[in-house]
């Protein structure tokens, strides 16, 4: 017993010492300008790879483990996905709340073949949501999680995306999302 307690005590001291070396709190959020989701989408091209601070209303939280959420801007059509990343996770309680998140803006470029593949999957009744470009995957879990009320229309979004691709000079449609670094405020007044 003494031996076990000795080992335990040594480990506790070791963990305590290691824990004391944790990094200072990141204060970068105070240096960034707060963007709305609309502004983020409008300036997306210039912000890819950079840290951003964005606020919006949480309209969906991944129901499996809160690994991602979607926040909306002026309308439900203007939204952005936030991967929890270093934030850890989001919770259902955040639905409908305005949050302020710091993260790195990332871009997925969907080209003609991606959209064709998505249309093919949609026609076959399979998931056609490459990189969550069409929003969340909620409908797949409706039977156990509710979500029948989701007004998201993936078929319409896919149609819009094809329209954007036809008008695009770069031959791709950019889809922006954020790799979360910090939940600055869980609720924004």
């Amino acid at each position, binding site marked *: 017993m003494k031996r076990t307690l000795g080992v335990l005590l040594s*480990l506790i001291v070791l963990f305590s010492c290691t824990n004391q070396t944790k990094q200072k709190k990141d204060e970068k959020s105070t240096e960034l300008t707060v963007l709305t989701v609309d502004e983020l989408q409008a300036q997306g091209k210039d912000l890819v790879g950079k840290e951003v601070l964005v606020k919006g209303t949480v309209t969906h939280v991944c129901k499996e483990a809160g690994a991602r959420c979607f926040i909306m801007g002026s309308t439900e059509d203007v939204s952005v996905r936030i991967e929890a990343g270093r934030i850890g996770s989001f919770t259902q309680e955040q639905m409908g709340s305005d949050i302020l998140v710091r993260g790195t803006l990332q871009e997925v470029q969907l080209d003609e073949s991606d959209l064709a593949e998505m249309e093919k999957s949609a026609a076959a009744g399979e998931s056609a949501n490459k990189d969550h470009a069409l929003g969340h995957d909620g409908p797949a879990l409706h039977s156990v999680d509710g979500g029948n*009320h989701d007004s998201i*229309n993936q078929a319409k979004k896919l149609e819009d995306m094809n329209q954007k691709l036809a008008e695009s000079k770069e031959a791709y449609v950019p889809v922006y999302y954020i790799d979360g670094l910090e939940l600055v405020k869980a609720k924004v007044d």
Partner: protein
Amino acid sequence: MNIRKSLRSLHRDFGYLVVGITFIYTVSGIAMNHRQDWNPHYSLITEGVTVPATDQMEYSKTEISSLLAKFTNRLVYKKHFITKDATIKIFVEEGTVIYTPLEGTAELELLKKRPFWFQINRIHLAQTDRLWIWISDAMAAFLLFVAISGLFLLKGKYGIKGRGLWLTSIGIVIPLVIIFFYLN
């Protein structure tokens, strides 16, 4: 005290120490394995009410609160907005209401935390502060020690040189088969 005896006493004591955390990880693990059949974190409560149909689409917070009062579940208003589908999406604490004025229907979905399950699943997924991560890392190390030390506790035909070797090998081969044949 020889090595085997030390190993045995540490195996015994650490074994006792990790019972609690083993319980949490295994029970929560089974619960989450079946998340396509049930939501291990939240339970779903639904309710619908009917009101006179109208083509009005703009609503004040007071008007929405009056609508929410018609549900038997007590609802706390958070926010609402008009969707493209001509419905009003209302966020309430723990859920949402979709009000369709043209049809005069309002449907509620509440996601209530499952007591016990919600907490152990959060622990399992390390959706906690840093302290728990340190504790669970330490417990994982103890669990690994208990598993490895257990291999060398018995001598003879039931030990690692006999039956123990076969059973241990089977336990290692099963996940390897899954990795090579199903996950490649």
